[in-house]
């Protein structure tokens, strides 16, 4: 039983409202979800489908000047489009790309990139927050 409903029943017990008025009040409370529940539900829906990748970088200068700040917001739709673009690359070209990446020390297999995997990754990004804090530098990466 939530607090609002209990308060209405207490008012009814104290005779401050009639039974009919208490019934109207409880009906009105049942129609409208409580603010924390609404906010929680919104957060839950938003968390399940993040739309942007946010990157914050703040670097403090040793000379005492104002810090350098970088703020980047990348739509995840653009990342999805990039993965789809990779799926359109012919297989022969993908092999050449993989070879070039390997030579440069990047162990990524372009042939394994699939849009479905990215969608699943994006959903889990909602729970991911990366905070790196060093002496003069702060980096924060998260999805929203």
């Amino acid at each position, binding site marked *: 039983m939530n607090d609002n409903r209990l308060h209405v029943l207490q008012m009814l017990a104290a005779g401050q409202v009639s039974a009919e008025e208490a019934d109207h009040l409880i009906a009105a409370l049942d129609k409208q979800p409580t603010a924390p529940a609404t906010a929680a539900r919104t957060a839950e829906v938003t968390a399940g489908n993040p739309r942007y990748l946010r990157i914050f970088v703040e670097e403090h200068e040793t000379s005492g000047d104002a810090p*350098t700040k970088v*703020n980047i917001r990348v*739509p995840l739709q*653009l990342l999805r489009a990039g993965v789809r673009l990779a799926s359109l690359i012919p297989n022969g070209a993908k092999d050449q790309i993989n070879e070039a990446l390997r030579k440069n020390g990047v162990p990524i297999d372009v042939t394994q990139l699939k849009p479905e995997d990215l969608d699943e990754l994006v959903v889990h990004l909602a729970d991911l927050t990366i905070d790196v804090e060093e002496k003069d530098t702060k980096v924060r990466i998260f999805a929203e």
Partner: protein
Amino acid sequence: MIPCLAIVRVGGHHRRTIRLWLPLFLLWPLMLPFAAVLAVVGLVLAPAYGVTAADVLRTAWQLVSGWRGMHFEVDSPEGAFQVRFI
């Protein structure tokens, strides 16, 4: 939805700030002929590479519309630069 406006801000802490609103919605119609040519080329070459024309068009649309909401900002003691695609 493709981005319709780009806002560019250049300035600094001790400098005048210049803010530009670039109407991309005027630019897209000018790009239509080039987009049409690229679309035809893509549709012709797609089957040769084992992809469907629908995939090509969908990917192209997502690449263009994915820029909406992009926000890039750098703020340093020497100056500030900001780009937003709306």
